[in-house]
């Protein structure tokens, strides 16, 4: 085995470019202290957008990588409008000192995600994943004057370390059982070719390794039982970082999961024992994730915590796609992630705007927006409606695909038919808690002293674009099918 010969340097060109940009920014931070930090945010975001453009138009379009790059760019850009809070929470007052890395580190993490999309063996997978995770630890605890941020950083570090440990342990088992780090169906085939009878130890050991590797991926995407870090860290971390964790980092998790699951594709057919085990495992994880995410979200009053539970719930819907392991799996996951990313990022922009001007991250701070900022309120409504899955938004389309996937899977494995009612009920719950925000905006009176919001330029543009994209992508398939 030769890890280096598996890859070409070209594959990692976007990742290198982003790392280079990050290095330049950090140098600039040290050498050009006069340069306003907003410029850092702008340059970093542009770098990500350029990278995503090349990923999208490249010879091998890298859809998931593209989503991650755009998401990273948008979460850096979110910091552009968030500088006031950044300065207050990092250096105190309006001092910009020491805030430079906050804009550079996401670029490094994004480079990790991009190299992750190229990984075809466990070593590359692990290294890329740790690049993301290590940057995220720093980012989560970056607001050192904010107790919540420090707590989030510590919790993320401890729980992340546990997940890394599990991942490394799983990798070791993997190597021990099959003698290679490569991922591919020939490896899976070697491990379980003779079935249980021929080499029981090998097969069982291989599955234990797989389970632990899955757990590592589940940690990133926030699927049960590795979701525990999400609410606390999302609530406590700086909002731009939360946006990054909720979208880019989750995308990375799904890239890992796809890479781990796809080698099993030939075995995930009706009648296969290992297929049945895998599907049951995914169905249970999806079901439990859906229940925990949606149930937990119901009583939340803090919008970042709500969005945390929401991200768990949405991960549950994406997990359903993994019940059909086939070639279109990555596309479906990508579609869902796109709908989720557009709506969630826009939501975080709104949260950041409200936090900056009203000083609160509670849902109550959104009260009265329907009266004072009708246009902004409408855009936010579109995003939350899409998260809930209201027809004519993209959220509806992708949720429908998820239901279709569940029904298709039931055709192959009738035993998992309990999943469909769980999905229906939890989707209905989604309406309850997403509409809490909409209700606050339109049906509740603004708290005294809360004036109309001034919508910053970037926030305005991003909110509008995301809402328009959600509506366009949600209605276009209908128009196309009407002919």
């Amino acid at each position, binding site marked *: 085995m030769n890890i280096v010969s598996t890859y070409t340097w070209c594959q990692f060109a976007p990742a290198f470019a982003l790392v280079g940009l990050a290095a330049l920014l950090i140098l600039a931070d040290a050498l050009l202290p006069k340069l306003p930090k907003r410029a850092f945010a702008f340059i970093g975001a542009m770098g990500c957008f350029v990278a995503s453009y090349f990923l999208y138009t490249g010879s091998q379009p890298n859809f998931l990588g593209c989503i991650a790059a755009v998401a990273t760019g948008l979460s850096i850009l979110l910091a552009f409008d968030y500088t006031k809070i950044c300065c207050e929470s990092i250096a105190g007052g309006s001092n910009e000192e020491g805030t430079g890395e906050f804009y550079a580190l996401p670029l490094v993490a994004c480079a990790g995600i991009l190299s992750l999309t190229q990984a075809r063996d466990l070593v590359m997978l692990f290294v890329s994943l740790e690049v993301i995770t290590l940057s995220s630890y720093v980012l989560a605890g970056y607001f050192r004057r904010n107790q919540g941020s420090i707590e989030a950083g*510590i*919790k993320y570090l401890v729980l992340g370390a546990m997940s890394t440990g599990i991942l490394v342990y799983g990798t070791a088992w993997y190597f021990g059982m099959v003698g290679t780090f490569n991922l591919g169906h020939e490896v899976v085939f070697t491990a379980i070719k003779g079935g249980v009878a021929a080499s029981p130890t090998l097969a069982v050991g291989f599955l234990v390794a*797989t389970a632990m590797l899955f757990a590592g991926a589940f940690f990133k995407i926030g699927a049960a039982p*590795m979701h525990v870090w999400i*609410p606390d860290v999302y609530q406590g971390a700086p909002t731009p970082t939360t946006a990054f964790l909720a979208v880019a980092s989750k995308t990375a998790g799904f890239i890992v999961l796809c890479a781990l699951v796809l080698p099993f594709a030939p075995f995930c057919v009706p009648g296969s024992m290992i297929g049945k085990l895998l599907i049951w*495992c995914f169905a249970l994880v999806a079901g439990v994730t859906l229940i925990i995410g949606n149930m937990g979200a*119901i*009583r939340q009053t803090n919008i970042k915590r709500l969005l945390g539970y929401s991200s768990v719930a949405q991960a549950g819907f994406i997990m359903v796609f993994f019940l059909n392991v086939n070639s279109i799996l990555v596309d479906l996951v990508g579609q869902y992630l796109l709908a989720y990313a557009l709506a969630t990022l826009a939501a975080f922009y709104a949260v950041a705007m409200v936090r900056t001007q009203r000083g609160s991250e509670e849902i109550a701070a959104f009260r009265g927006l329907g009266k004072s900022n009708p246009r902004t309120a409408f855009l936010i409504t579109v995003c939350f409606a899409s998260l809930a899955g209201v027809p004519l938004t993209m959220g509806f389309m992708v949720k429908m695909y998820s239901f279709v996937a569940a029904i298709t899977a039931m055709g192959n494995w009738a035993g998992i038919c309990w999943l469909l009612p769980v999905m229906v009920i939890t989707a209905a719950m989604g309406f309850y808690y997403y509409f809490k925000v909409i209700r606050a905006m339109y049906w509740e009176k603004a708290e005294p002293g809360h004036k109309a919001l001034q919508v910053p330029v970037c926030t305005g543009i991003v909110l509008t674009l995301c809402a328009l994209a959600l509506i366009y992508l949600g209605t276009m398939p209908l128009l196309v099918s009407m002919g």
Partner: protein
Amino acid sequence: MNMIHNLPWLFLVLPLLVAAIDWLCLSKHPRLAATLSLLSAAGTFGLCVAYLAGLQTGTPGIYTWMPCSLEQLCLHLGLVMDPLAMRMMLVVTGIGLLVHFFSIGYMKGDSSNLSRYYAGLSIFMFSMSTIVLASNLAMTFIGWEMVGFSSYLLIGHWFNKASAADAAKKAFITNRVGDFGFLLGILLTLGFFGTMNFADMGGKAAGIAPALLTVTIVCLFCGAVGKSAQFPLHVWLPDAMEGPTPVSALIHAATMVAAGVYMLVRLQVSMGTEAFTETACCIIASVGAITAVIAAIMAVQQDDIKRILAYSTLSQLGYMVMAVGLLAGEAAMFHLYTHAWFKALLFLGAGAIIVCCHHEQDIWKMGGLSKRMPLTVLCFLMGTCALIAIPGFSGFFSKEAILDAALAKNPVFFWVGAGVAALTTFYMLRLCIVAFLGSARDHGAEHAREAGFTMALPLIILAVMAIISGYGFIANDLVPFNGFHAHGFELGLPFYVSMGSLAVGILLAVAIYGFGGRTKDPLAGNCISKALRNRLYIDALYDKVLIGGLQQGFAHLMQFLDSFLIRGIICQGIMWFTVRLGYLFSAIQCGSLRAYTLVSGIGLIILILLLAYQF
């Protein structure tokens, strides 16, 4: 691209567009809205005249609204352009145009939102045209509900007046009762005939059991009972007189209430008369006859000029329905057509009188109007002559046609018709004598002046139509019926009987009311009069038994189920449960790192067991 064959769609598109513009853009510009509505009515009328004069544009396109893999289940929107439809369109657009014109004078100085009024008229023109031109029952039903809606809007135009708002509601709800049956009938038709298209229904009735046919036809007839205000659903029409008088003329006299008759005749033409079984015919004719009789009786003791005309409309509609039940569709449509002109005339005349008497509607407070507004009164008298069927006026020919048909089929209906004719003569002469002769009994009538040009012109045109429209040379070309041909008139039993009832009516009226000298109704004050004034207590019965008893009881039951079962147990119970469960799940998220790692660890062990244990 040659779209000329789609020209007839303008009949629907034009008024709909105008209604939308009036409603959405012109609410502050009533004059512009009125002009637009008038132009759209004139446009459709012109188009209609052009088609009747022989314009050919080919078959209009069919729009498939709801495609379906089964052809007969598709919902098509198509237009029928046969003489029955096109000549009916002439009546609708012609009277519509005159009413639009009349409205400009009538509504002048009204403080309500006139754009809303004209938008309502336009949307009515659209809906009525939809019914007339519909190529299938589904489209008829769409128009059917739309006229109900526009009628609701226009009756309740002065919605600040409680009685108008109530009347609008009553009309709408009563119609819904009939429409429910109509909908059932449409579904039964689809089931038994296998199609809703009028063009495909022919000849299919032979293969259907008579009992099923009867049920289907009676259900469809329910729609007509509601829309054409037949007994027992006649109660809404007199109340509908709360609307502006031009609306009463257009909707509640000439066109919409005749839609039921039109629909029945359309069915008779397309299904063939064999589809109308003996039982069904008997039911239809009896309902018509009962309506004709009770409405005429009730009209005898009304004092409101519009209500007298409303009961008269009911009674004449009864005639038409009776004719349909006697399988004399031709006579029914003939009467519909003459009635439309002279009843519109009577209503518009009444409208002119009401405006000129400063919104006084009680005939006992009028009097002596023949001296103050001779032109209006003259036109009104022309309408009266047509209505009471004086030979030579249009109403005479059509009533004669119905009486002929009744005598040929079933003499009972013939004598009923003759009796109603006598009553009609009596109550119309009572109206004319009291309102026009003698001297003014109130200030309003004292200061009455002749109506202005916009009101007089439609009256004159309609008066001319009321006189001449029954003669063969006009009727043959204009009566909405395929291949209508006026009978040669001959002396015979029907003629002598109707002359007799005319004479009886005139003599009685003159004997009781004299020549306008009376100031009080000599027939009033006894229990019969009281019963008639109270509409034979039918409305009160509905209020007490149906609404007060059954409906309220049912409503209480539903309310109990709703508040206890659905809201209490199902909604709140589930909500309570879910929220509690949510608390439980978020309680796991207590913030303690050790708890988190424990949960993750246990989860991981379960995951490993799940995947690997079974090996």
